[in-house]
């Protein structure tokens, strides 16, 4: 029997609400807002309250896939990265850098988002970078 309340930060928007993930024998079963967090003081929005749900969602992608003829096929990281890089290069050469846009995520770390904008601006050459939290 192991019940843990793991203190963490809500993975959705940039507010950074403090939450406890209730983990019963390794399975996340509930999100509880932290009352000690100065950000949310025991309160959450509906996304925060369900922050644990996507972890166990059957729709979640856990490995790389390539879409071929409308269907997702499992593929290796090398394969998907090579494909993505070559297609991005092709599109940029044919239509120019501003034909490409990047969508970052509040679910990622600051560092990951920094790297994505770096890729957009320095490697591709576009300022078309936005994020999912622009609601």
């Amino acid at each position, binding site marked *: 029997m192991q019940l843990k309340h793991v203190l963490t930060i809500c993975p959705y928007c940039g507010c950074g609400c403090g939450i*406890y993930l209730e983990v019963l024998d390794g399975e996340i079963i509930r999100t509880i807002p932290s009352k000690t967090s100065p950000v949310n003081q025991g309160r959450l929005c509906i996304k925060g309250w369900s922050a644990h749900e996507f972890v166990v969602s059957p729709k979640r992608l856990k490995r790389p896939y390539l879409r071929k003829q409308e269907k997702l096929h499992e593929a290796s990281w090398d394969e998907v990265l090579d494909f993505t890089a070559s297609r991005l290069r092709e599109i940029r050469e044919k239509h120019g850098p501003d034909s490409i846009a990047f969508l970052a995520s509040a679910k990622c770390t600051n560092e990951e988002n920094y790297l994505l904008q770096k890729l957009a601006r320095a490697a591709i050459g576009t300022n078309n970078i936005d994020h999912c939290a622009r609601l």
Partner: protein
Amino acid sequence: MKETIIEKVKDLFEDSRIEAFLGLKEENGQIGPYLFTDPKDLEGFSLGDKEWPGDKRYPLSKILIALAQKYPENRFGILVRGCDERALNELFKWNQLNEEHVVMVGFPCPQELAEACECPKPYPESLVVGEKVKGIKSKKVEVILNMGMEGRLKYWTERFSRCIKCYGCRNVCPVCFCNECELANDDLIPSGEIPPENPIFHLVRAAHMAGRCIDCGLCEEACPVGIPLRTLYKKVADIVDSEFGYRPGYQKDQKSPFNILGERPED
């Protein structure tokens, strides 16, 4: 007070009366729920007081339901204030928890908290430490009643219109245990609309609190937009009391009027 409770919990472990104790723990300045399975872990044990008394309460009885469902044979100790005990009494009656497998370790709230909560019974029967504190009669319900019909309608319509439908009031509620929640029924409360239909959403919840709400106030503390839910449910409790002579959670042996099927109808 805390030390006495810790000693009591240690005794329960030593006498093998419990296999685990559900309480609160302070770690790195943060107070949260904690399941103690070893008396050695009791360092950092917390009563949920940080800035002021009882400001870090959590729905421990609700957490216990999930635990007891998976481990129905185990016996659990649980830290209780007056409100937690009332919640557990109600959960026993509704067969959500087995009373024989739950050992309550109770402590009273200080007068200051009792007054802030307007709590009629700020102590549990299962006191292991401290004195019974004087109950407080609510004044908030009366203030709203004195606004008159029009004033009340305006007051509640404005408060309900702030709702962002986070479901926090339901999620944190120790006596919300239905498998299917009417508030999540897409035909009654369409998803994707904020605020939810005013006043249906909040009146549906208020009606469902009849005979259930044990007046702990966790809903109001969880509400991000400051809807005075506790006052609303206090009024619901008053109505149930005057109609059925029943206050949820207070009398352990009194059956809930919402839990009685009644006489078998004649054929």
